[in-house]
């Protein structure tokens, strides 16, 4: 995971200059017109890209080393399993939200979408409340529901031109409302054995859920690498106006990116339900913050165009190691949340440091 910073990593090398002996403009003084400034910025962005990924990896390594030094328990193979299992849900959610963040948009809909999807899946598979027993089909429908939520967020943002901050916040409230209606006062306990096995059954030491998460992350990476949704999302985040001028239906691809994100949230909701053993309305509480934090720590910039699924995974591991290590070293769970808050602000500060002077107005 470490070296593979982006889908275009192998092409990152600078080609030999075709203009023999020509110094780079902008760097060599000369007449620094606006375009030269652009080239300077592009260069800064790129090196910042590499620096950021490296910084994230170093941060992760530092956390691991520090906790391993303090806590003997941390250094066990069992704890490694624990960390992987604990990271599974966040990994899937962070994969999803990366598509939205790449656009330069934001997604705060996770708590609601996950709540609605968690209730839905617990009522579609064998459960204590009704006689449904759709099994895998129920899970698939739940993922589709998540995608539908995402598409709706996307459509509202692009067609009605409402900032994603607002649409997704509203979507979260709508999701929670639907979840509460589905809940109807009686918690549905999941009786479906195969779904229950996601959390309990282990293959080669890892829970089924962890393996599903790995597959989901790989799928997310492939979507980002090989499909228009993934590639255009990066391009839109890089320079939306230029993409639009090239005749790409930007609104459509933005909406689709939200849809992909929603599908991952749906899967995350299924995993959370398997872990909790029943449908819980608040299953997604705090996931919005955790997923954004993970992505940002990994180097996915909130202004879009930078980062990616694999970078986000560095952030997921860093956050999980942090939580795990804080528990093992005896820090109170209440303090942990504050620590997480401090970490995200620091991470954003570090991520934007190289381009800090160029950001101009910050809102």
């Amino acid at each position, binding site marked *: 995971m470490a070296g593979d910073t982006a889908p275009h990593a192998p092409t990152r090398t600078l080609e030999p200059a075709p203009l023999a002996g020509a110094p780079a403009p902008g760097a060599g003084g000369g007449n620094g017109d606006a375009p030269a400034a652009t080239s300077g910025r592009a260069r800064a962005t790129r090196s910042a890209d590499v620096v950021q990924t490296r910084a994230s990896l170093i941060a992760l390594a530092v956390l691991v080393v520090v906790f391993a030094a303090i806590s003997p328990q941390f250094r066990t193979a069992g704890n490694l399993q624990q960390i992987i299992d604990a990271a599974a849900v966040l990994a899937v959610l962070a994969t999803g939200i990366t598509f939205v963040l790449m656009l330069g948009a934001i997604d705060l809909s996770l708590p609601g979408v996950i709540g609605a999807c968690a209730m839905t899946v617990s009522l579609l598979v064998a459960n204590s409340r009704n006689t449904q027993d759709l099994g895998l089909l129920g899970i698939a429908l739940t993922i589709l529901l998540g995608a539908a939520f995402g598409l709706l967020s996307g459509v509202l943002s692009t067609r009605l031109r409402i900032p994603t901050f607002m649409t997704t916040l509203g979507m979260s409230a709508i999701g929670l409302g639907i979840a509460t209606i589905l809940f109807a006062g009686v918690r549905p306990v999941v009786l479906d054995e195969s779904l229950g096995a996601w959390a309990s059954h282990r293959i080669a030491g890892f829970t089924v859920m962890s393996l599903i998460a790995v597959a989901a992350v790989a799928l997310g990476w492939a979507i980002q690498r090989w*499909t228009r949704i993934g590639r255009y999302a990066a391009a839109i985040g890089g320079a939306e106006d230029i993409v639009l001028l090239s005749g790409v239906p930007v609104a459509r691809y933005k909406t689709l990116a939200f849809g992909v994100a929603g599908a991952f949230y749906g899967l995350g909701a299924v995993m959370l339900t398997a872990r909790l053993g029943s449908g819980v309305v608040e299953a997604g509480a705090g996931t919005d913050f955790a997923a954004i934090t993970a992505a940002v720590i990994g180097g996915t910039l909130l202004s879009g165009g930078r980062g990616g699924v694999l970078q986000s995974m560095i952030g997921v591991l860093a956050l999980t190691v942090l939580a795990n290590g804080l528990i093992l070293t005896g820090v109170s769970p209440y303090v942990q949340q504050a620590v997480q808050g401090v970490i995200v602000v620091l991470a954003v500060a570090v991520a934007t440091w190289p381009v800090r002077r160029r950001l101009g107005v910050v809102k």
Partner: protein
Amino acid sequence: MSNHVRPAAATSPVLAVRGLTKRYPGVLALDGMDLEVRPREVVGLIGENGAGKSTLLKSLVGLAQPDSGSIVVRGEEVRLRGVAHAASVGIGMVFQEQSLVPNITVAENILLGAEGSGVRGGLFRWRRMAELAQVQLDKIGSTVSARARTDSLTFAQRQMVEVAKVLALEERTAHEPVVLLDEPTSVLEREEVETLFAQVRRLRERASVVFVSHRLDEVLEISDRVYVLRNGRVVAEVDPAEVDATDLHHLLIGRESTGSHYHDDAQQQPAADVRLSVRDLQTAGCTQASFEIRAGEVLGVAGVQGSGREELCRALFGAVPGARGEVLLDGKPLRLDSPRAAVLAGVGYVPSERRTEGVVSSMSVTENMSMAHVGTVCRGPVIDGRRERALVDTWVRRLGIRTPSGDTAIGTLSGGNQQKVVLARWMVSEQLRLLILDHPTRGLDVGAKSEVYELIRELAGSGCAVLLLSDTLEEALAMSHRVLVMKDGRITACLDAPRGGKPDPVAIMEAMV
């Protein structure tokens, strides 16, 4: 000089512009423009700022909708709706501010939105993408790798990629495209310009090229025909083999009387004491600038786009990070690290982008005016509304700002009145010692311009030093006591321009381009 017109070519034009007219509020950007582009030729376009070059190019790629006149492509009149539509009829533009997405590969940029067989079944085939892009890169002999990330390229390399992107139009239209190059050499080093020219000549084998540049020697070198634009019209069509740069200078400037428009009589002798002294100012795009401005003096700065004069002015206001140099304001060092420091030292700045940098359009006239010196109308930490209104009323009357009231949103006023509010923002301060005016009359109509000129005269008369960047050379000469000429980031000349003894614009033009 010869306004030589070639005998009608046997071939019909690929692209013809007939009587194109476009009016923006207060400005007639295109005034019945007529020109044509024939197959496989390089057409040069030259003209001063505001001559209509950029509006013409925008119209040709559908980014501006002309009010009247027509654009004819291969004999068929078209109404271009946008860049994508222009591309579909074979017109592509290499934008001055580059139009490549930085964080994706060269191949993706070249094929963006038209991947063709590079995407099969919704999946990117990276090898095929690279091959398709390579075909376009080969057309201009570029050695840039199609798989390289775009932001890893130099500026010149990216320009080649843009040309390749425009050439990709060929695959879609089955015609030879028309490639518009907007100021392509403005940020290139000399050797890079040679490379670009070699590629333009190669391009001529398969396309028509429209070449726009401020650098006359370059236009003469590369073009088969040159159109000279002035005030939104073609004033001459020349054969580069038969003219030299001096002829073009005369054509560019024209012969218009200045009249009382500039309030020439109000130009007063500046005081003797040096207000601002700049030594070896160094910033991105501007090197080793040294000059002085005296109290009550208007110093004009002339230069084409990319000459570094904008950077110079912004650096003096502390708006460019990393500017260095010894700058003294009334003998005291002026810090260049923030606009705040500049304002506190008594420096004002009127930016050229009035709408985005000059005014906060949703806020009232009052708020916009008192913004920079709100401390003067405060009682403790609270803004004293009565004092603020009184101050604003005074200035609205003094400058003749036409506004229903001080509470009117400034965005609803005309450009000229907005600009007067921006000027008032600085004039309210009794400590104002230096005012930097970055294209203060841009986008204003004639009457409003004249009023702004009067204010500048008045300001200088009261002892304030003024640094003036003008849209036109004529304005700079008429308004200034002295004119600095900049080229490629350096000051190349400094001419006295006393009342009644204004220097010859042709001389300045020669130092500029």
